[in-house]
Each structure stands twice: as C-alpha cells, then as structure tokens.
C-alpha cells in the first residue's frame, strides 16, 4: 500500500473515532458536532482528503462520518 493510501486510511479511522464520540448525541447534533470538530482541528487538506475518499465510495466510513463529511462544503 502506498504512503498516500495509508495516510488516507488513517484519516478515515480518525474521522470514525470522532464520530464514535458524538454518536451518543441526537442525530442532527452529532452530525453538526463532527463537522464542527473537523473544521476546528483538521487542515483544509485533510478535510479535502476525506472528502475525496467519500467521493470514491467511502466504504470504511461510519454512516455518521459519511453524513458529516458529505456536508463539509467549505473545503
């Protein structure tokens, strides 16, 4: 596996971890919290990388992560 692919996989795993924490909140709040966390702490490039991963199918994404990343429009 290439370094870039490993890196993308790691970002997906990190995003899923974030989703896991916010999962206990009501659905809409959870999606908003995940988006907010990604915007607050991730660089635009990292956000772009997971958006690209989603565009490519995003099969390893947690459903909640998928929804939050899909709504990340400002990257």
């Amino acid at each position: 596996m290439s370094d870039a692919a490993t890196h993308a996989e790691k970002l997906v795993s990190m995003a899923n971890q974030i989703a896991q924490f916010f999962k206990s909140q009501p659905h809409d709040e959870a999606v908003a919290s995940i988006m907010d966390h990604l915007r607050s702490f991730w660089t635009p490039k990292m956000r772009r990388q997971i958006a690209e991963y989603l565009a490519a199918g995003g099969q390893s994404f947690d459903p909640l992560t998928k929804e939050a990343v899909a709504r990340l429009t400002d990257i």
Partner: protein
Amino acid sequence: MSLIKEVDYGTKLAAGAATVTLTIDGERVTVAQGTSVMAAAMSMGTQIPKLCATDMLDAFGSCRLCLVEIEGRRGTPASCTTPAENGMVVHTQNARLAKLRKGVMELYISDHPLDCLTCPANGDCELQDMAGAVGLRDVRYGYKGANHLDGAKDESNPYFTFDESKCIVCSRCVRACEEVQGTFALTIQGRGFDSKVASGGVDFLSSECVSCGACVQACPTATLTEKSIIEMGQPEHSKVTTCAYCGVGCSFKAEMQGERVVRMVPYKDGKANEGHSCVKGRFAYGYATSKDRITKPMIRAAITDPWREVSWDEAFAYAASEFKRIQAKYGRDSVGAITSSRCTNEEVFVMQKLVRAGFGNNNVDTCARVCHSPTGYGLKMTFGTSAGTQDFKSVEKSDVILVIGANPTDAHPVFASRMKKRLRAGARLIVADPRRIDLVKSPHVHADYHLPLLPGSNVAMINALAHVIVTEGLVDEAFVRERCDLADFESWARFIAGEENSPEAVEPITGVKPADVRAAARLFATGGNGAIYYGLGVTEHSQGSTMVMGMANLAMATGNLGRDGVGVNPLRGQNNVQGACDMGSFPHELSGYRHVSDEATREMFESLWGVKLDHEPGLRIPNMLDEAVSGDFKGLYVQGEDIAQSDPDTKHVVAGLEGMECVIVQDLFLNETAKYAHVFFPGASFLEKDGTFTNAERRINRVRRVMTPMAGLADWEVTLGFAKALGFEMAYAHPSEIMDEVAQLTPGFRGVSYARLDELGSVQWPCNEEAPLGTPIMHVDHFVRGKGRFMITQFVATEERTGPRFPLLLTTGRILSQYNVGAQTRRTLNNVWHEEDVLEIHPFDAESRGIRDGDLVALASRIGEVSLRASISDRMQPGVVYTTFHHPNSGANVVTTDNSDWATNCPEYKVTAVQARRTNQVSDWQEQDRETGVSLRRIAREAADAAE
C-alpha cells in the same frame, strides 16, 4: 548582588483573622492567634536564639536555647512551643537567660569539632551563629570527655554527605523528612548520649531516602552538607528562579559564585513549593554545564554528512534559505515548527509568531500534543477553559482525594509531599491505577480504596463511579441546578444511569471489584471536599479527552468545584507545558485558547504584527509526520523537544524526519532528533535566560538569568535571528517586552508584566482588570463558559487488543530520579538510581515465561521489538507490564503504537499489546540505533578546530 536570605520565624506563622497583642521586650506586637512567642518576636525583628527550631517545621522544644521569661509565669518556657497570648509580657534577654543559654551552648560545643575555619559550613552555620549570639567564650567542661568526634561520615549519596561528628541531634533532619517530605527515612536511634541520626539502610543511599534535600536544608550545622558546598565553598550571591523540570514549577534560589552555580536551594516564598524540593530540582542541575553541551551552531547538507560548525549568521542564513527554497518548491504549508514545554513563555510566543506570521501558516504544535492536549480539550468543553481549577495549596482543604492515572510521588514529588501531609492529617484517598503506586501504601499513608483498573478502561471506571452517584441519589442537586446546564445534565444522568455503566457491568472491562467501586464512589460523593488529581495515565489513551470530560462530569455532579479543597487538577508533565499551551502553540489556537477562525481575535494580531494570518487550523505533530512520510511536508523547526525519542512509533517518526529536506533542531544536546537534522541551533539552559514558566496551577513564575548563554544567545534570540534571516523581523530587546505583547493580545494575561511578577512574586492567570492579583481558584461563582456542561462519555474500547501473540498490556511512565527523555537527568549523578530502563513484570507473568529478575527480555508489539532487563515486581498486576522511556537506546517507543486520542491525537502510550520472552541479545533496532548514534552525530574535526 547579594545572597537572598529568607526570614526564619522559628515556627510557622499562624493564619486566621483572630489576633492577640502582647509585649515583647517593651514593644507591643499583634500577631495571629496561634503564633508562637518565638515567631511573634521575629515578626518584630527580634531573633531569639534557637537551634532546633525553624519555621519549615513544627515546634519541637528540645534545644533549650530559646528560653524566655514571661511575667506571671514560673520558669523559663521555650518560646517556640509557647503560644503568644493577649496581654502577655515577654522578656527575651536578661542576665538569667543569658547564663542559661551560654550553659546550653557550652554543652553543645563540648561535643563538637572546633574546626570552624576549615568546616564547609563556615559562614553558614547556625551553631556558630548561636555561639556568637550567646557570647560563648570558653567551655568549662573541656573537650576531653565522652564525645562523638570520631563519628562516621556517610558519603554514599551522590549529592550530600552526613558527618555524624558534627551532629547536635536537634532532630531537624528527621522532622524535615517526616513533616516536609513525608518519607520517614530518618530516625533518632539510641537514647540519651547514644542518640544519633540514622537512615533505615546501611547508609543514606541504600535507605528509603529520596534525596529531596529537605534534611540538608534543615540542618543547622555541617552535618548534612551539599557536596558542591564542600568542594566550592559558600555562595556569594543568589537569584530566585524557577525549576526546569516538572509542572510543579518550584521556585529556587540559584546560589552562585560568579557565574558558577554552587547550589540550588528551594525558595520558601515560592508559592508552588513553599521551600520544598525534589532530587531533580535541588540537585540535578549539572546537565546545564555538561561537557555534552553543543555550543556552536552547525549545519550539514545531508544527515549522513558530518556536522560543520559555523557562525550564528551562517546558520541563520542557511536555515532561512532552505525554508524559503522548500516553501517556494512545495508550497507555504510544507514547513512548520514544534514549540517546547521546556522553554519560556516568551520563547514559545515568538516561535508561534514566527510560524503564523513568518511561515504564513498555522503549522505549529507543541509537546503538549503528546501529554495533556486532552486536558485542554476536555476542560474547555465542560468548563470553558483549558486549565486546572485549583492552586496547589487547595489540597490542604481536601477531605477526599481521588488520584487517577498519576504517580505524584515519582513524577510530581513536591506536590506529592503536600498531598501526603494532608493525607496524614486525615484526608481519605482513592487511587485508580493499574499499578500499586507508592501512594497506595507508604509510611503513614494508605489508600482507602485502590482500584487497580486495566489499562484502557478509564472511561468505563469513571462512568461506573458516576453511575453509583446518580443512581444512589448522591448528586449535589443544588450545585447542578445553580451552576450547570440542566438539559445537558439530564441527558447525561439518563445515560450514566444506564445499567451498562454500573460497576457490575463494567467489571469485565475494568477488572475492578464492583463493591470497591461503589464504596469509592460513595466516599467521593459524601466525604466532604472531593478533589481529583490526574496525570498522563488519563490523557494518553484513545479516549483521553473523553476521560477528562468524565472527571469534569464527576466533579460537577458532586458539587466539587469553585472553592478550596476540590476541583479537577491535571498534574502537568513538563515545567512549562501549561504555558506553552497558553501562548498559542496549538495549530488551531492563538494565545489564550482563541480559535484561529475567530475574526476579531485574528484581526487584533494582524493589526499588531502587520501581516495577514491564516484562518484555518494547521498540522498537529502526528499530521506533520504523516505528511512528511507521504512526501508533502518538508521542513521542521523543533525547539527543545526530542520527538525521535519521546513520540510513539519511533520508526514512523524517523521515517517522517528522513522524508524532510530541512530539519532544524534547537537544543542543549545533540539529541535523537538531531541525528536527522540539517541545522543545529545550540540552546540555552534555564540558567542562561530571562523569562517566565507557567506551572500546572496556572502560576506564572519568573525565570532569571544567572549565567551567560554558553552559545552566546538565549533561545528567544535564536528564534529572532532565524526570523530576521527569513525576512520577518521581530524587535524585542528583552523578554519582558514579549510578555508585554502577550498581555496586550491575551485577555487572561492583560494584567501580567515583569513589574507585576516582581511585585507579587508570581501570579496565577487569569490576571487582568477583574482579577489584578490573579486567580487561585477558577469557576468560583460561574464557569468560564457560563453554565457547566455535562458531556456524554460513552466507553469505547481501544483498537489495541491483547491476543494470543501479544497477551500482555504495556503501560509506560516515569520514575523519580529521571525526567522525560532523560536528556537532562541522564547527564547528572541521578543515574546512580536508574542507569537503564527496565521492564517491570508480575511474578506470575515472569514465571510462566521463565523470566528471572535481571534477565534480558525481548519486548515485542505489533510494530516493533526492543530488549530490556526484567524487574520482577508484585506492584504490577498479572497481565500488565511497565517501563520508562528515559534512556534512548531502550527504545520504549519503538513498541508503542500511533493509536491516539480521538479528539486531540494525543498518543495512546498507556496501552500497547505486547509479548515478553527471554533473550540473549539486543533487538535489531537497538543495534542499528547504536550505529546511527555514532554515524549521524559526527562533527567535522577540522571545522571544529578552525572555529576554536
């Protein structure tokens, strides 16, 4: 310059509003009720002769030198043990008292060597002073009677000697060990004339002594003396400064001869330590003048080249040209920097300013990333600010102390002494830790409950404690109603009351008996003031931030916030880790924890700095390394941090560093990271610069320069030089001007200045118009965020799991005598206590693997393997092993993984699945590390010689 001498009142000054007025030698004096006659006299400047009394200790009344006359009372009571009373009339000097005192001194001196001129304490000896004070001119008994002049000298301790022949058996050392340090290593052995001070072991070194120096400081003669004093003589001037080791931030007097440190003496007026110290701060300062110091800037084109010593100007020019080249080729975001928790606030501030305004991005991070970043996140989410809630003194009012994932007696020893004092006075103790740390059972201290949870189960444990409190109706409803967001509380309470959070349900996860969890929870909720103290055993987990929020929930639910004796208290790892975070070291935050996306804040900085700032967060350390491995991140400026040793998954860190085209390391030594560097800026020790450190209780303390920087520049000046070469000039003539800028830009620091610090000694932020004297206790009437926010803290197991191949859990930490990556302490005599990292393993686990104490053991995880000596210890629980990371070639972080906290990417150092087996060789990595340790550190001799 002169030697700073604190006033010794002989006994502690009482506190409190009630006062008494008495007359001493014809002068009326008013003191707090409970003050001794001795201290009352000293408060008006009258020093009553004394030997066994000192205000660091409780009154003892044994030397009989401090006798006074009190009108209306019979005899001559000891002034140290007699409380001052209203209307009392005291005489401290008259013929009768003079005769009595002279008689006492005659007895002392009749059994004391008369070698004052060659004695190391000459000029700093209370016995000598008292002989002068009482006018001793001869000794009627002569010197030929029975005596102790042939007493043995114990020189086993590397830092001080015990010369029995000079001991007057005043018990100050024994009492200091008990009352100040709380170790009880010393005792008075024998009776009457045979009485003598004894350590528990054969000698001091083999005893329980922790070399804190309290006994040496308390000794009124030359019996206990620093070896440095014996070698060098008495100091002639001193300055108050702040220790550069742990987050307690002890104040010390650096006692000097010219520019040479003679000794470091804990400063009694230092509010973090109140005159106490540990073996590191007190004695282990020799690294600052170690022969290993690099004192000339160096550059090289490739890491395989030898280093070439150059001038500062050439080093700055080369580094700047490389960073400019890299940014031109790979883009603005291809470079970044790591600030140091060992450097001053001012140095950190200019580093992050260089990155944001000079590099033009927000790729700045700090070593807090790998220790307390979850503290910042978790406490900000729940309380609204990223810092602990109390001052250290608060522990004196605690009734129940909950210690989670911290080992204060080893990692924060001076605070631990305070805590133990409170525990000896009756506070109850709950320890949640996988190991049986010393606090669980030590002299006169024992935990009411030790919850030996499995690594990785913190959140399940904190939820179980909260579950008991909620389901048994122990919530402080009045506090919650008044101070917290009720909707959040109700939602949390519903979650936490769920059966899945009960102690019984989580027992398979935590491994702790439910009955103990229930009892501990009841004690915490009902035992009075409950305080939580925690360390890296909380934060360095994949759920580190969740756990911090869990503790905040527990404190809010039990009403334990906003007053003395309570709170959520992170025990910070490094001396200035709090300050480094405060100063805007995180890639998403400007100073004062304000997000870079906040336009109003950014505009304030932009207008002062004259540049446009990026509004997006930058890269964290792990992100920088990941991007370096994938080829996008090419230049790194690392100040006072050794990521190749301290950060997890060493091979990945090294791969990242090797992928960069210019790594600048600024450090005292050619550390592990410097093996992969292209530019080396020699650093300055804490003794070589002015500035401030902020400790774990948010206390800003002054650091004062006592010697010229060995490399010619203080660290802040180096950053300025590099910045100037890059074309971004920062004009400061002194660190005080940097602090003035911090104050101008940061609301919580608005009232901080060097003048204010000199006036108050130190100050705890926030310090501004609302709190001009600082803020010892946070969240008194309301939380910084308004209402306290309960957060739902669902337990999520780490992805790091044990299995047949890796059945043990490895957890890592520190020991008392060494510090962090050991760069400082390994270059001192502290190695006598810990010359290598060992693997602590339970006897069951050792036996089933055929491992004996001292065997070389291969420790393997899914990502790496190293070899360490085994130390069999039943303070481990079966299935859990432990090691430290103080020595680079041990390679503890070769086995730790890059799993990290979900919110902050703080590495999960505390949970690694491993296997251990006997071996007879070091690992391949260790072999290779030894080779690169030499080959990547070569300095071109001809250049070095030419530069001489």
